[in-house]
């Protein structure tokens, strides 16, 4: 071909589209609210007020952000390496279980040490659980999507079983015993529920951000993008897939341990209201990078917290938050297709003369046939 393609400067178009998509999602959400007999503007005002209107509200929103952020990072790490870990929810529950086992066993430690042990146990349990699909993939070539999806049920039902018997606290409800107070994440701001999990989440985001700048991160990412090229370059495919899944599962497990040590202080069946699933959307919308996931996680927390107060004031079910999240995802995905279709027009054409690519031609290929 006589031309070479160069990305033009007007690429910024691509960055506006997600916001336009978000706006459209709220527009359609507004229509739904209107149909339900509610003034959409009032409803949206309540969402904002209910999530950001007071220091208590902000604290609650941040508490939700913590879980969504860590879980979102968990999924984003796997997705970045093209490993489709849809099992964050199950890994989260296993992590909570790990945290619980340490939290009810370790007594008399310095609180900080005790909390860290709980969190490490959560990471370890989540990582181990995620290694099941990873090993199956590496050894037998089983799709990790199917295995991770199905293992969610295994984890939730297993926890449910444990809560009915083996680790059930005395009493009527399927609750585990409380962890010892020194294993709880301390509250950061008095008279709110904001706990030190916020620091844990920030550290997790920093970890993921720098992971991609590290040697090991480069290896993991390369294996994800192109196994054949990574193998050719001398990278260890099996090791990389196992490590990626362990990091992903470990972060999901950490989410569970943070929920346990920061919010519930005991294991219950509904310790996560589907954070591991919302995490998939967050990872996708956050474009698999740490900063993006932070922003989207906060945005989703606002929606969740706000729709709770909308339920209290207007009687609109909390499920409306999920509807809005889904709408945002759908519109952003559509928007992405839209950007892709229109991008080529933004590509500048550069003539061969300007970028003289093959300056030194010598002989045509056919002349080679004549050698001697």
């Amino acid at each position, binding site marked *: *071909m*006589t*031309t*070479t*393609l*160069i*990305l033009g400067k007007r690429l910024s178009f691509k960055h506006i589209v997600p916001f336009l998509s978000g706006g459209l999602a709220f527009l359609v959400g507004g229509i739904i609210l209107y149909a339900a007999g509610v003034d959409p503007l009032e409803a949206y005002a309540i969402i904002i007020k209910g999530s950001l209107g007071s220091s208590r509200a902000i604290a609650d929103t941040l508490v939700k952000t913590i879980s969504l952020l860590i879980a979102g990072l968990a999924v984003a790490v796997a997705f970045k390496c093209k490993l489709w870990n849809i099992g964050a929810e199950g890994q989260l529950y296993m992590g909570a279980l790990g945290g619980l086992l340490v939290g009810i066993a370790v007594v008399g430690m310095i609180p900080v040490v005790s909390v860290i042990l709980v969190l490490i146990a959560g990471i370890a349990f989540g990582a181990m659980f995620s290694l099941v699909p990873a090993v199956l993939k590496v050894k037998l070539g089983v799709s990790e999507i199917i295995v991770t999806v199905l293992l969610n049920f295994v984890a939730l039902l297993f926890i449910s079983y444990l809560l009915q018997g083996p680790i059930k606290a005395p009493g009527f409800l399927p609750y585990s015993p409380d962890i010892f107070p020194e294993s709880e994440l301390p509250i950061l701001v008095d008279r709110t529920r904001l706990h030190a999990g916020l620091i844990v989440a920030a550290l997790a985001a920093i970890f993921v951000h*720098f992971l991609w*700048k*590290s*040697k*090991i991160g*480069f*290896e993991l990412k*390369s294996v994800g*993008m*192109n196994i*054949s*090229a*990574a*193998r*050719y*370059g*001398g*990278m*260890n495919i099996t090791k990389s897939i196992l490590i990626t899944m362990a990091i992903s599962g470990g972060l999901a497990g950490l989410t569970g341990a943070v929920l346990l040590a920061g919010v519930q202080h005991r294991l219950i069946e509904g310790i996560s209201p589907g954070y591991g699933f919302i995490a998939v959307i967050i990872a996708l919308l956050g474009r698999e990078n740490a900063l993006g996931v932070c922003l989207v996680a906060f945005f989703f927390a606002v929606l969740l917290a706000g729709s709770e107060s909308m339920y209290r004031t207007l009687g609109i079910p909390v499920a409306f938050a999920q509807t809005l999240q889904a709408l945002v995802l759908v519109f952003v995905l559509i928007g992405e297709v839209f950007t892709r279709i229109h991008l*080529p*027009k933004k*590509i500048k*054409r*550069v003539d061969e003369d300007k*970028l*003289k*690519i*093959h*300056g*030194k*031609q*010598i*002989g*045509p*290929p*056919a*002349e*080679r*046939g*004549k*050698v*001697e």
Partner: protein
Amino acid sequence: MSDAGSFLLNNSNVDHSAYTPSSPSSPNPSHSLPAGTLGDLPVLSMNGITCRFNEVIANNDVHLDLFKGEIHGLLGENGAGKTTLMSVLYGLYKPEAGEIFVKGKRVDIKSPLDAIGLGIAMVHQHFLLTPSHTVTENIIVGLKSPGRSIFLRMAEAEKRILELSKRYGLKIDPKAIVGDLSVGEQQRVEIIKALYRDIDILILDEPTSMLTPVEEKALFSTLSAMVKAGLSIIFITHKLKEVIEASTRVTVLRGGKVIGTVMTAQTTETELAKLMIGRSLTHSVGHRQEEIHVGIEKSPNAKASAGLAKVLELKNVFALNNSGVQALKDLSLTVSKGEILGIAGVDGNGQSEMAEIVSGLRKIQSGQVLIDGRGITGMSPKQIREWGLAYIPEDRLNTGLILEYTIAENLILDRWYSSPYSGKIFLDKHEMRRFAEEIVTNFDVRTPSLDVQVRYLSGGNLQKIVLGRELSKEHKLLIAHNPTRGLDVGAAEYVHKQLFKQKDSGVGVLLLSLDLDEILLVSDRIAVIYAGRIMGVFDRATADVDKIGPLMGGYVAEATN
């Protein structure tokens, strides 16, 4: 006038230079050639075809006439627009402008089905056959049984296939399973499949790219039998030799435009080359190898050690391919320091497996592989690279590079873990960038910026990145697998120069290439591979196509054509 043979004798009075492809717009361009020479009306006439992808013009106002009983060569370099033009004709692309006339009637070809209905068939470069079915099943697929029968009338079909096979000299067993056939035989199946549909016009896209020289000869004689029977053939190629050998007329495309249409009998390879690449030749062919050497310093040490130490030894190597079939059978060969050993062979005879075994990407069943005296069995690809292997892989798009990465990231694909490209934990962005700048300068990579994903670069530039990475490390052995495939002349030339440089610096080079001309051009010794075995090793001085050709097809004793 349908007899191609006598047409060749009669055409001496044709003034081909008078044919100006840009002027005609009439649906009957019989003025392009004197009436009576080729028949009055072309069977096919393409007028003013323009086809673009985004802003790249693949065909620009292209005119092409095809007469009954001619083999029309469509010549051009990679990317000249040959395949696009034929895809338009075959209903695969819709042109932006232009008209197509078949037997004088204006037609609108929207799909291959329309094309076949008009008597046009195309044999693609990569065959579209079902390997697990028989020849007959592959040929009759999609056709209705005669007389509304709900049963397949295999016997009838087989009879007709044998008839066609006999008439055109296309030897084939209708009951054979296609997967068991050689590439040449599969091509025959594709051709019979076209003939079976009673076509008038046959398009062949690079038909010789996978054939041995012997099979090539057989194909050409089949083609001439077909045109004698009244068919017309369009033959896409970038090889001048073939055009001269097989065609009656040639249309040369360059940069999407028709440069000219000439009578083959009245032109020469040199003249066609000039048309094809757009400038005249400055070198005589025989001197090319020496010429490439000019300007490259030869280190005397390298010369002295050349031919002494063995850099690569394969001893009785056995290995399976991906589908578990024996790919290498008792293969032995050696590469010495400072020499280029060329492996000639048709695709799929064990070349890929050989390269993968030496680089540690494939397990060996039995035998020994030594690089610089050290057995590499059990070593990881990383260890082998560190021990001294540089490897230009066959598939630069999927193996040699990660297209989503920048140049800098691609350059550290094999050394991301080592100093100075990274520290204890993190990659060193500054060093990576400096290295990328160095390679871009030294290897003359043309890129709009260092930060673009390499997917936006051209094939030649991608190969330069691979070369830059592989040649910038310490190595004793270089494997180059189809290093110039898909590159244009200039880029291919550059790669060959680099291979000579390597050899002169004492590196042993194992060159695996499907392009026999390339092997003959650059190798010091030539080994022929067939069905996973080395059929023979020749010194460059004693090797020629007549010796190597039959071996590539597995004919050991029958060295004559």
